[in-house]
């Protein structure tokens, strides 16, 4: 299916958010995720089923002022 991941169009096989992270080789307990503008908590990623056209944000700690 086609997803928008961090602003880029991606063709993926993953059916859930947890699978998506594995497929795109994300790792680390410091990631935060959102689907269509709503946070998806770490423990909810495995149950978060993706749909064509979903907008996914995958964030991590960065420098800030």
């Amino acid at each position, binding site marked *: 299916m086609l997803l928008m991941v961090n602003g880029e169009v991606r063709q993926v096989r993953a059916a859930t958010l947890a699978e998506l992270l594995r497929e795109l080789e994300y790792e680390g307990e410091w990631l*935060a995720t959102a689907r269509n503008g709503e946070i998806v908590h770490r423990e909810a990623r495995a149950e978060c089923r993706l749909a064509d056209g979903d907008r996914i944000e995958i*964030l*991590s700690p*960065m420098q800030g002022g």
Partner: protein
Amino acid sequence: MLTLYGNEYPSRLLLGTAQYPSPAILSQAVKASGASLITVSLRRESAGGKAGGAFWELIRGLDVEVLANTAGCHSVKEAVTTARMAREVFATNRIKLEVIGNADTLQPDVFALVEAARILTAEGFEVFPYTTEDLVVAERLVEAGCQVLMPWCAPIGSAKGPLNLDALRSLRGHFPQVPLVVDAGLGRPSHAAQVMELGFDAVLLNTAVAKAGDPVAMAGAFAKAVEAGHIAFQAGLLEPRDMAVPSTPVLGKATFQ
């Protein structure tokens, strides 16, 4: 001692972590500043990327508490979602709430700010709102549950120093019990001392240190200025007078004519 949401901090300097020449200089600057609270943010991680993890390791190694921000958010929804994500990653209820209203001045959208503050406070967040020096907005933020206010003194990164001292003084006068932190616009240690002399509780700065010729030395200079300004406020400053007043006693002066 600086007390914010019931937590005590030995330093009255809050420091940002962005724009340093290197991670090593960032670490040294944080140490030199003595800051007990440093700001961090969340940004998109590229697939397979490790940048966020490496940065987070560095920050955790500093053993300083973090204040996550919602920098770059332009709407209530963006800011609220970012705050919720930050809480999960950084494991803290503290959030520096920024909702930008104008791209040129980075002026906060104070209407959205108040709304987001209300939502986040209800969810148990400790909201540190980046706001303007507007008194009525400050009142609304306090009503929304904010227990600290962080007015700018000039646009972010402008290094102009306090542009409206009267408004800052007025804020201090109206909110004697609310911790006030000047956030944004400080360029020099003297600017920091100036607002601390008004009785502000702390300052938050980033660019003035990170972009200095020697960020580590500048972090130390700001730390001294903040402390000097605070002690001066507590000591009671002399108000300016229009006429000269001799400092040496006149009584007992010899006459030679």
